[in-house]
């Protein structure tokens, strides 16, 4: 027993040191700094104050949070509506096709959100973008730039989130027993009916996880809204970044980060409660 304890300590010393000094401690430091007074000459001043939190009560911050909530609701919905059937179809494909799809999805993951945002900017530009195709099809009168806009930010975020949602749903959907669907089909259920009454309920946990990941990812997204959105569509993440980097006001940035965390946690809890209630029905 004693030797096992010794071996465990030896094993876990290095990971423990890194995780405690670089994850747990800095997090507590962030909370502490959010309560420190602002010091224009240094990083922050000694003492405790609520002034950084008090400065958050303003329409700009409130609007930014609403932007974030709106965006994350849309991204979460889209990543489920697109990601769920996509993952299901992938898991039913032949092995080779499955691997090709997985490599495609993983490859889009390899590109920085900065680069994807840039690609969307090109795709939506006036000169060579999507609007030219729409003009050719006679849907639009003349080519125009489709950025900055809310739709552009949203498309880019959905693009970035889709591979994550497939990877989250993939394990459980690929283990799903095919004979259950077949049983439902033999008993006269349509493919759609079989899908919604057999498959969807069995994948509730990973589906909830997908929604939560989408919310967290969107609330923290920084580059896509800057590149593709107008300032009034910027979420809180962008304000945090500029407060820290351009404004050099670390206490305020820390307080905003705490606020963003609370907002994200609230939406996440709300989502969990909603899906929990459905289960009881």
């Amino acid at each position: 027993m004693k030797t096992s304890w010794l071996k465990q300590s030896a094993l876990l010393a290095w990971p423990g040191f890194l995780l405690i000094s670089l994850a747990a401690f800095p997090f507590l430091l962030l909370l502490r700094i959010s309560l420190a007074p602002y010091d224009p000459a240094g990083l922050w001043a000694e003492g405790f104050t609520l002034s950084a939190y008090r400065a958050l009560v303003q329409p700009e911050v409130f609007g930014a949070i609403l932007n974030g909530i709106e965006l994350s609701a849309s991204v979460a919905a889209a990543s489920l509506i697109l990601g769920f059937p996509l993952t299901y179809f992938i898991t039913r494909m032949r092995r080779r096709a499955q691997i090709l799809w997985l490599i495609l999805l993983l490859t889009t993951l390899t590109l920085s959100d900065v680069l994807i945002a840039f690609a969307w900017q090109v795709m939506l530009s006036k000169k060579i973008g999507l609007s030219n195709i729409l003009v050719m099809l006679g849907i639009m009168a003349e080519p125009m730039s489709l950025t900055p806009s809310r739709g552009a930010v949203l498309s880019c975020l959905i693009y970035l989130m889709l591979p994550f949602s497939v990877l989250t749903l993939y394990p459980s959907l690929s283990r799903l027993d095919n004979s259950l669907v077949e049983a439902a089909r033999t008993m006269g259920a349509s493919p759609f009916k079989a899908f919604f009454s057999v498959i969807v309920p069995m994948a509730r946990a990973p589906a909830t996880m997908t929604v939560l990941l989408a919310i967290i990812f969107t609330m923290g997204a920084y580059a896509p809204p800057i590149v593709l959105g107008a300032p009034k569509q910027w979420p809180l993440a962008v304000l945090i970044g500029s407060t820290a980097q351009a404004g050099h006001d670390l206490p305020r940035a820390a307080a905003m980060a705490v606020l963003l965390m609370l907002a994200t946690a609230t939406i996440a809890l709300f989502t969990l409660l909603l899906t929990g209630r459905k289960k009881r029905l």
Partner: protein
Amino acid sequence: MTRTLRFFFLMTLASFLLTPLLIVAGVSLNNVQQIRFPPENASLTWYSYFFNDPDWMAAFINSLRIAILAALASVSIALPICYAIWKYASHVGALLDGLARLSFLLPAIVVSIVFLVFFSWLGIIGRLEDIVFSHAVVFATMPLATIGMGFRTIDPALIEAAALMGANESDVLRTVVRPIITPYVACGFVFVFIVSLNEYIIANMVSGFMIQTLPIKVFNSLRMGFQPTMCVGAVLFMLVGIGAFSLIAVIGDLPKLLGGKE
């Protein structure tokens, strides 16, 4: 009917996923310093420009260096934790696993402010190692997941059989555990490598404007106006990604590594 619908759905999503990649690749082949697609007079001008520009090369090499070191450090966090959980059902290990998971579940901007405050407080902001360790800790969840999955696939009967036949602990580790675990460790390594290579916001906050990684440089040049050179960087990253994942698919079982059915 459902078949056509499915085909249409899959094709639409495939082109949705492929178009941005194709555009980036296409623009990188342009001959002129303008956004043109499809490229006119396709050439590798910007590739030679990229490889001859010390700034772009420095950013590229910084990114590679950070990604390799972060992936190594991340695996060095994950492997002992997973082993301790598997071998000793370690509670401390489970606790550390949870801690890593939590830091992964914070919104990216929050994590980057956490590290900005922390490294500023230590007075060592703007070093390469800062980015390495930030990435290693935040992304440790990925090797923890893949390696943990690897340990769970080890059949206990195999260990018992080895012990019955007189193998001691290190023999078992070397002959049974290591071969089973290796592809999962490699997979976790590749995931952290790729994600770290492309990570922007944490690197940007921690760099304190002193270190440029490729994503930071691309973002800055995006704001200063268009340069086809940045697409070259993107194409290089894409090739690295496709190469890495195809390699995993060849040497390992990609669907299984991603948690699919055997």
